[in-house]
């Protein structure tokens, strides 16, 4: 999923990452249309193949994020979407026929940070805090050709500090084993130190003045190459995302985020029940519908019992009151 304000180069980056053109003939809304605009979620599913390896790639785009004048709660639709995918998977997994489950869960969010500021903005912080325990966040500094290398370092450090300060859990690269060779460790360290990645995206291939056609942006003062490691971290991002860490992203999604979601879901369903852990795990084996009915019945019973007790006590109270009144009346009558 790609999330970020409009104009930060999300679609260009996606095109560059997968070397395809996903967004042909896109209409960009004008600014007065943006004022009341709400978030949309658009899915683009493509099948790409390389040397016999097939990948079904789904790119979820979020146009309209942060574009309106009042952006409070603009991350809610995104959080809901993520939860929906989890819920769908949960149902499928608990169903009877589990052979062909389609995994639509979001494995990774590329969050685009604007390079023009001095670090994270309040909207960035709010969004990341809302989804950091649901999905892997990979922060990216967009349009990094605005920043000189020195500024890039400063900005990265600043963002890392702010992420720590606000307690945001971004995707952590797994530590490599200690018996790997030095070069690998160095690479790994370099990777970890470059979060967030400063990327440049481009739709155009530059043909003149260069040895071979490359993707890049042509300026009067030079050509910023997309795949040049010195110019930007694009190649690092691509390697990480597709070559080396794709599986890890999926694993973390499955093991950590999905399990969290599942635990929460189940807990909320069986909160009132007083059964022990073992029975609960047995219950989880059953289908979801039974799951929902059973504890409900139990709770209802309890509620009824309590109601009856209350009624009885009330009656008793009334009787006592009447008795008292009667005795008083009798006493008065007797005299």
């Amino acid at each position, binding site marked *: 999923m790609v999330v970020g*304000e*409009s*104009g*930060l180069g999300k679609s260009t980056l996606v095109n560059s990452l997968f070397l395809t053109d996903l967004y042909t003939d896109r209409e*960009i809304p*004008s*600014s*007065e249309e*943006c*004022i009341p*605009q709400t978030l949309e979620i658009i899915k683009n599913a493509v099948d790409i193949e390389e040397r016999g390896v097939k990948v079904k790639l789904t790119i979820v785009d979020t146009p309209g994020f942060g*574009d*309106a*004048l*009042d*952006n*409070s709660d603009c991350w809610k639709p995104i959080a809901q979407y993520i939860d929906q995918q989890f819920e769908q998977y949960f149902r499928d997994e608990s169903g009877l026929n589990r052979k062909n489950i389609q995994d639509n869960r979001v494995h990774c969010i590329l969050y685009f940070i*604007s*390079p*023009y*500021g*001095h*670090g*994270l*903005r*309040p*909207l960035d912080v*709010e969004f990341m805090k809302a989804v950091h325990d649901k999905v892997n966040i990979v922060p990216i500094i967009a*349009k990094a*050709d*605005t920043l*000189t*290398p020195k500024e890039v370092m400063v900005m990265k450090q600043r963002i890392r500090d702010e992420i720590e300060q606000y307690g945001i859990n971004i995707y952590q690269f797994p530590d490599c084993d200690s018996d790997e060779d030095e070069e690998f460790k160095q690479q790994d360290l370099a990777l970890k130190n470059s979060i967030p990645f400063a990327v440049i995206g481009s739709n155009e291939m530059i043909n003149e003045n260069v040895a071979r056609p490359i993707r890049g*942006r*042509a*300026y*009067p*003062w*030079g*050509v*910023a*190459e997309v795949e*040049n490691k*010195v*110019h930007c971290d694009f190649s690092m991002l691509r390697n990480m995302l597709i070559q080396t860490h794709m599986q890890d992203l999926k694993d973390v999604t499955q093991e950590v985020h999905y399990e969290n979601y599942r635990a929460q879901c189940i807990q909320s369903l069986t909160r009132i029940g007083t059964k022990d852990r073992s029975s609960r795990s047995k219950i989880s084996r059953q289908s979801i519908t039974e799951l929902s009915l059973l504890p409900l019945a139990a709770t209802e019973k309890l509620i009824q019992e309590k109601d009856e007790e209350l009624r009885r006590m009330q009656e008793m109270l009334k009787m006592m009151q009447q008795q008292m009144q009667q005795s*008083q009346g009798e*006493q*008065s009558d007797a*005299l």
Partner: protein
Amino acid sequence: MTESIQSVLKNTKASDSFVKLATATRTRASPAKEVNPEKAEGEDREEKENGKLKLKSGDTECWDNDRERKRVGRLDGKEESRSVVCAGNYRRWKGNKGEGVRSLPLSGHVGFDSMPDQLVNKSVSHGFCFNILCVGETGLGKSTLMDTLFNTKFEGEPNSHSQPGVQLKSNSYELQESSVRLKLTVVNTVGFGDQINKEESYKPIVEFIDAQFEAYLQEELKIKRTLHNYHDTRIHTCLYFIAPTGHSLKSLDLVTMKKLDSKVNIIPIIAKSDAISKSELTKFKIKITSELVSNGVQIYQFPTDDETVAEINSTMNAHLPFAVIGSTEEVKIGNKMMKARQYPWGTVQVENENHCDFVKLREMLIRVNMEDLREQTHTRHYELYRRCKLEEMGFKDTDPDSKPFSLQETYEAKRNEFMGELQKKEEEMRQMFVQRVKEKEAELKEAEKELHEKFDRLKKLHQEEKKKLEDKKKVLDDEMNSFKQRKTAAELLQSQAQQAGGSQTLKREKERKNTSEGVVTECVPTMLCVGSVRLHTPSCIREPPEPVTIDSHRLK
């Protein structure tokens, strides 16, 4: 000399207390006649000073905003080769002949052509003042651009993103360049565009601009005023920084510019434009201008009716909004140190026309049109504000001839109206007060009556009860008496019977006595129960019945 005077005149401040520089445009109606404003000015000045010299016939009259008559002389026949054009073209020449004014040829050199020099000296010694407002999101390079424009280092550290609201920070600086002093004020918006809810973001800016206008208006309306030495804080231009997204304006930009366009001269700028390639830049500029036009936002257009600058201004107008890059770092390029930003793929030079429009901006802003910006602020935006404000207060210019009087009259009228209203309100309040008092009185009276009635009722009840009690007491007494009688009679009988003999009769009589006593004792509690109001005052019931204390019980 002509060139320097021209440039100097362009930058001279025009204010109320100075003699206004007359503008000259070649009037279409009378192409043959050329106007020499300097001479005209000199004549005007002389007239003012002497109060006697009057040029008759042939002079044109022109009216300016303050409606002072200016007599400008025209020289017939004498061709002056220079057509001196001054900035501040808000006054138009009317080519018609006015009444009673004519131009005279001079037979020798008088010397009032040194008027501009005097003006220049005066204004240079007075100093100039210019106020810039920079509006844009945090981190777009506003402070850097200001530093680059004025070749100095202005502010402190960059601002953070977590401001709760938009604030404006104003800093004033004194700059001097070869004996010309400039008092520059740079106002920065802090926290603009950072909040999650940006609907109120434009308000502090509008309020700030209005506050400056208000201050000036107050100074103008004072009785003892010092406009000459007044430090003018009105914003002369607003540089609006647009983020280089490459797509279009942001919604926040549009809304803010719409609110500001009638209050200040807006010059939109594309900030950090080293992120946009040439082709994207042209598309972006076109998109921006079309959006501004379609939404009716009036940005500042460089004036094109002034001959010398018309050409350059009109070409510049086509380049709006300017795409700029700011940098305070110097990089060695070739053999010169230039301001630039160094990237791994190349170096962006700030002052290179191919790389960005910084040079154009500097030209337009400072070197060519600074004076025009000030004029526009004073004559268009400030006058609009003033008009709105005064109309709000109820002043109207109904008769244009008698200016100060109408003001005074309206003022007096207003005052009387106000006093009348006050009096009316007082009367109303008084009446209301009286009414209220009456109502209260009536209420109190009613209450009093009720109380009286209640009291009477209670008294009656009391009386009745007392009577009842007394009756019962009487009855009781009677019974007691009869009992006593019977007792004495019985005793008598007893004594007789004793004499007669027989204890049986005694017993029988004793029984009888006891039963009669019991009857009496029974009677008393029932009477008590009937008489008392409350049942469950146990003290009442349990006390031994004493005939003497019946009254006190009953009356409880």
